[in-house]
């Protein structure tokens, strides 16, 4: 929750209800709204005596009086869960007294949850702070790659006369989240990972359409075709991208002739992230972009290497129609060995995996460094080409 909201513009406040070090579960050196975050800074005495209400009341009251936010989100932590703190009652009371909308969420780390669940919960909470049924012609984008505001899709939709309500979560302000419910339709990277959001928006009469993640040429073309059909644009979107598509296809042809058949290790389940486009499609949103380049791909999945777990991953991949070879490795510590054993030409890794790949002597890139949409294909390929050429 904190990771997602810290870069959200808008006049809101987030209160971490717990000891001060609980704020240390997310970074403070990035995110444009870090200065709108608070901690109730519970002491040992307050935690052991259960006297946690007063600091929360004081904190919320002063935020309402001084900052005057449009909304306050209170996040519960492990220590307050352990002592059974019913902090939502305080939050509701202060909200009623001050007139500032306040939401209490039990977000402690005690209940294991997936990145998908957290994102869905967070987005749904933000949308719930707004009201109004679907109206007008605006469209929204949910769970797409970052950079949406200045992206190719924004440009071509504008040219086609379509108004965008926002790109969610990236860059969306608190006000835009509150207004998302009023869009006529939204395009979503993965409907399955947002069950709460889907239910809420559909209840408001909004049409939700799943699209591929726009990485590489073929997936991006299907992305535009899906939008085009939904908005009855008669092929206008892809027509306006004819030059970009030709350049992308040429770059792909050149790349395939030079590097087709080379071995690519594509790692999965390594990233500590709450970026919804990375989590979408089981982390396989870029796979098609690498397949169209002619790579010989092996999936390296971080997970327990027990035989039943390995079998389960096989079932999951086959359910997605994938017959690619895959290998399970237990954690980052084992990645280097895994990469060396596979004798890969290139590795797509996440986070800390880059250093393991470097130690293995294998050129590597982070999937989040790849740019989305058709116009970016030549640049992405130049980057991969440089990695392969200068290994």
């Amino acid at each position, binding site marked *: 929750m904190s990771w997602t909201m810290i870069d959200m513009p808008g006049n809101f406040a987030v*209160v971490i209800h*717990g*000891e*001060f*070090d*609980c*704020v*240390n*579960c*997310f*970074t*403070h*050196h*990035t*995110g*444009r*709204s*870090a*200065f709108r*975050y*608070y*901690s*109730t*800074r*519970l*002491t*040992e005495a307050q*935690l*052991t005596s259960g006297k946690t209400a*007063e*600091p929360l009341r*004081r*904190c919320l009251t*002063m*935020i309402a009086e*001084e*900052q005057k936010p449009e909304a306050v989100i209170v996040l519960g*932590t*492990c*220590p307050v*869960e*352990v*002592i059974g703190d019913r902090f939502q009652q305080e939050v509701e009371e202060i909200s009623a007294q001050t007139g500032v909308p306040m939401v209490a969420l039990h977000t*402690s*780390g*005690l*209940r*294991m949850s997936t990145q998908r669940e957290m994102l869905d919960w967070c987005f749904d909470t933000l949308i719930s702070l707004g009201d109004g049924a679907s109206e007008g012609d605006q469209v929204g984008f949910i769970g797409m790659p970052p950079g949406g505001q200045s992206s190719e899709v924004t440009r071509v939709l504008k040219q086609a006369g379509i108004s965008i309500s926002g790109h969610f979560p990236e860059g969306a302000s608190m006000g835009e989240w509150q207004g998302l419910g009023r869009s006529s339709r939204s395009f979503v990277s993965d409907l399955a990972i947002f069950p709460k959001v889907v239910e809420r928006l559909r209840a408001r009469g909004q049409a939700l359409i799943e699209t591929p993640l726009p990485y590489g040429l073929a997936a991006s073309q299907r992305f535009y075709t899906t939008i085009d059909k939904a908005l009855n644009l008669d092929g206008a979107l892809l027509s306006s991208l004819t030059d970009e598509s030709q350049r992308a296809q040429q770059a792909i042809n050149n790349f395939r002739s030079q590097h087709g058949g080379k071995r690519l290790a594509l790692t999965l389940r390594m990233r*500590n992230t709450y970026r919804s486009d990375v989590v979408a499609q089981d982390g396989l949103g870029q796979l098609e972009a690498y397949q169209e380049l002619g790579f010989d791909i092996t999936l390296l999945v971080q997970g327990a290497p027990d035989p039943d777990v390995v079998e389960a991953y096989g079932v999951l991949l086959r359910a997605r129609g994938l017959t690619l070879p895959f290998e399970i490795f237990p*954690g*980052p*510590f084992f990645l280097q060995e895994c990469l060396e054993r596979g004798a890969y030409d290139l590795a797509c890794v996440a*986070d*800390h995996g880059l*250093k*393991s790949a470097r130690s293995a002597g294998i050129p590597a890139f982070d999937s989040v460094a790849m740019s989305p949409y058709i116009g970016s294909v030549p640049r992405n390929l130049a980057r991969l080409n440089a990695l392969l050429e200068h290994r």
Partner: protein
Amino acid sequence: LNDLEHFRLKTNDLGRLTGVSIALHAIPDAFLLMHCGVGCKHKATSKLSTHDWAENVVDREGWTEVGDAELIEGSTHRIGPYLRSWQKRVQPGLMAVISVTFLDLTGDDYKDEVRQNDEELPCKVIYVPAPGYDGDVYAGYASALVEVVKSLDWTQPVTHKTEVSVLGYLFDRYEGDHLGNLAQLRSLLKALGLSLGATLFSGAPYAKLHEAPRAGLTLSFPYAAPRAKRFKRLTKRELLQVDLPMGIAGTSRWLRVVGKAAQVQEERIQAVIQHKEAQVRKHIGMARQHLEGQRVAVFADVPLLIGLCTLLLELGLMPVLVGIRGHTLGGEQEFRDGLARNGFSLPDDLPVLLSPSLHAVRENVRNLLDRDQLDGMIGAATEFNAITTLPADTFVQYDHRGEPTKRGLFALETGFPCKHYHVTRPSPFMGYAGVMGWADRLLNAPRLWDNGRSR
């Protein structure tokens, strides 16, 4: 509780667990097992991996995956199997276990569990308390230091009289800044006829740290100061408390203090200082000419702040706003006392913010910029995150055509974490070479924001 500032996110809201993880990261064959919930893992990895691009952060860390079920049934028994399996996989020289507040609240005896595993496993296993309601990152670093120092054999005699060991060097990454600092310390000591021995911590493996007791002199750097009495008891030695050797005055004073304690001849110490100072002063003349009179906001922990303000004043710059990061290394008085030890002082009305929030940094910097009273800022990535949310026209002015007319304030990252400042070659920020390093950084500092034409 009657001030909203109390509740706001601080620029250094880093607790003990982060400090412990930095300390363990500084021992390349150590392993940190975190007995904690899922969120606490980030206290050890997120900032450190941003800060240190040279060494992997995650492959020598593990956690015991405690959720609500484990909490209810009791979680102590999870520690042993995790320790044993990680020991087998990683073969570390040292393993450290931490627990966190919500588990401590259950009253389970993790310390004893760790003690039992220490007896059974082939490597040393220590327990480091890391409650999240008090202390700070420096307290965590010092706690880990205490436990490591405790594990060394201080009954062994001094066998290397001219060797100097160090407790409390804050080694937070394997990049060129610390490699450069350690080379500087070696060079300064060598000039006095001494040598640098085991340094806790310095990127040296655990076995190397066992050489600390053999040194003729043990220095206590400021990051060990909060536990000075404990270290004295544990080491059974008189430790020499020193400031960081920063700035010309700070480095020369450091040489005097260390040289005297090591019974180096006064003439030799003076000769070294005169020679080194003359060299540095010759080189920094041009820097001073260009930097003279620039007004700076500086955010750092007290030891670093003393060093930074010393050298800024030596280079002709004027601190006009100071922020003290953390609270266990001292406050305004300790800062002013340290500066006075280097022969400098700052005006009594200089604003000194104690453990400021991001909001406070943002507002104080904005006020100075609005009054055109600030030319630069030095701080960690968190302080810069606070001010980069200000509108661009806070930093630059525009002419009648709407074009920016000058460049904004200079921005230098230092402290923890650094997001943009990373160094591959040895680039000390301590010692005489550190003075020239800072002069170079100040002369070539990036700007918030820059029209690219003004000078």
